[in-house]
């Protein structure tokens, strides 16, 4: 045993500050949001272009009461989900092929590289020109943009598979289904979640980009466009808030609780 080092209070390691408690954290986040909204309240009468909070609130109330609003949100959501499904399926097949043989991995890595590198605007415009102003354009754009990132995530997931657990499963003669369900998939869960989250965030962006350029009548991107065309900043603000509600609603309402459930076995580690 070495000599004990007595630390004076100001040098004590990892001093607990009162900011560290979760209540303060939430409170501060609320203050951070509130400060910006407060500034808006204070500043808007001084400018010509800023809408008043009351106007935005009124606009929001109108939009919330209109069924077209929900139709637009749902339409964008459908485009996103179909695109994600196609992108994930393609990525899964490619990642599996890459795992099966290094030849195929080298073959597909060209496509993965190209898909990662191409700017999403070009993808959206190109798809809109080839497939016309149709749903297919949005589906293909989303799938194309999301695809390479999912391949990389899945590849990382495959790499993280532990040979020791695989041995254990073989010794105790677990069948293929059991090995997948109880060993491989839980082992890959972190990468699968990572892939899902990234693809979801990225997918929303490309949906909006495609919708903005597609001159379509509905969808969140089209609503942005319309608000912009009318020079209606209040409407744009409301639509951004709707968008954020959907994005964060899924993040906090689906992904986080789901993740907490799947990884509840980890609690002990901390």
């Amino acid at each position, binding site marked *: 045993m070495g000599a004990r080092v007595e630390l004076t209070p100001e040098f004590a390691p990892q001093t607990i500050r009162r900011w560290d408690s979760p209540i303060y954290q939430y409170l501060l986040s609320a203050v951070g949001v509130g400060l910006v909204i407060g500034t808006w309240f204070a500043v808007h009468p001084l400018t010509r272009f800023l809408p008043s909070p009351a106007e935005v609130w009124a606009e929001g109330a109108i939009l919330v009461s209109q069924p077209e609003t929900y139709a637009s949100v749902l339409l964008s959501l459908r485009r996103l989900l179909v695109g994600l499904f196609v992108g994930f399926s393609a990525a899964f097949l490619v990642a599996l092929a890459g795992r099966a043989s290094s030849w195929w991995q080298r073959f597909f890595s060209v496509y993965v590289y190209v898909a990662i590198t191409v700017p999403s605007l070009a993808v959206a415009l190109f798809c809109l020109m080839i497939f016309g102003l149709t749903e297919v354009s949005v589906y293909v754009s989303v799938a194309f943009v999301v695809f390479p990132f999912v391949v990389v995530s899945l590849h990382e997931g495959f790499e993280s598979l532990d040979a020791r657990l695989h*041995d*254990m499963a073989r010794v*105790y*003669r677990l*069948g293929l289904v059991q090995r997948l369900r109880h060993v491989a998939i839980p082992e890959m*869960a972190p990468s699968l979640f990572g892939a899902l989250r990234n693809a979801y965030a990225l997918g929303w962006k490309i949906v909006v980009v495609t919708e903005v350029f597609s001159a379509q009548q509905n969808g969140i991107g089209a609503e942005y466009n319309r608000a912009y065309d009318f020079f209606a900043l209040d409407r744009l603000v409301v639509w951004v808030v709707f968008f954020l509600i959907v994005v964060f609603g899924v993040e906090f309402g689906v992904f986080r609780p789901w993740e907490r459930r799947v990884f509840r*076995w980890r609690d*002990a580690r901390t």
Partner: protein
Amino acid sequence: MDDYIRIENLSYWYRDTGVPAVRDVDLTVAKGEFACILGPSGCGKSTLLNILSGLFTPQRGKVTVDQHALFEDGRRVASEPVACGYMFQDARLLPWRTVGQNIALALKAAGFPENTWNEIIRSHLQMLRLEKYESAWPMNLSGGQRARVAIARSLAIKPAFILMDEPFSTLDEVTGRFLRAELLDLWERTGVTIVFVTHSIREAVYLSDHLYLMTAGPGEVFGRETIDLPRPRQYEDPRLTEIEGRLVNTVLEKWGYFDHKEPM
């Protein structure tokens, strides 16, 4: 008494590098025996267990369990698979399944009907004084508790034999001793055959009926010692110390400088 596990003229080398791991190994274990395989690290002890468990296929030699051939001259002989329990160096539980689910998975894979699982799990957890932890996550357990779950799992499937690969080497001294005594108690109660691999001479002498001495890698068996001390044995028994001292002398010659690489 027939030889229950019989290994004849067994050789194994790594397929990719061609480096031999074990060479010309002959070994027999009787039913219900506690056999220890003692060798320095890297001598191919684990390879031997991996062959017995069916993970590796040896290139040469014959392996028979209960008169059923497992391997013959580099081929896996198609026969009824032998259920074996395996305790790895780490407990190797699935961290995302509870203690009970971990055992249930092994039972399911071993073909036990589902309505028997609960009873088997409960009785084995009771045997290892883990009944409180049936629905605990492995990460919430101490190292010793995890090792006991692994013992419970290996016993639960009613194996033909249990293979143990230095299962207590990562535990602290007190927990290790405790578990060794507990393992011997379980072994006497169940009559299961155990093949236990270790590099610790004292552990081997304390546990085994017979112990096999292996050379440094590529491993060959160069000696068989019968430990006929009465059980239950005491860890500090002078007779045990005496056998240990004699073995150290034998082994030093064969292991050469390999022994100092293994701090106990």
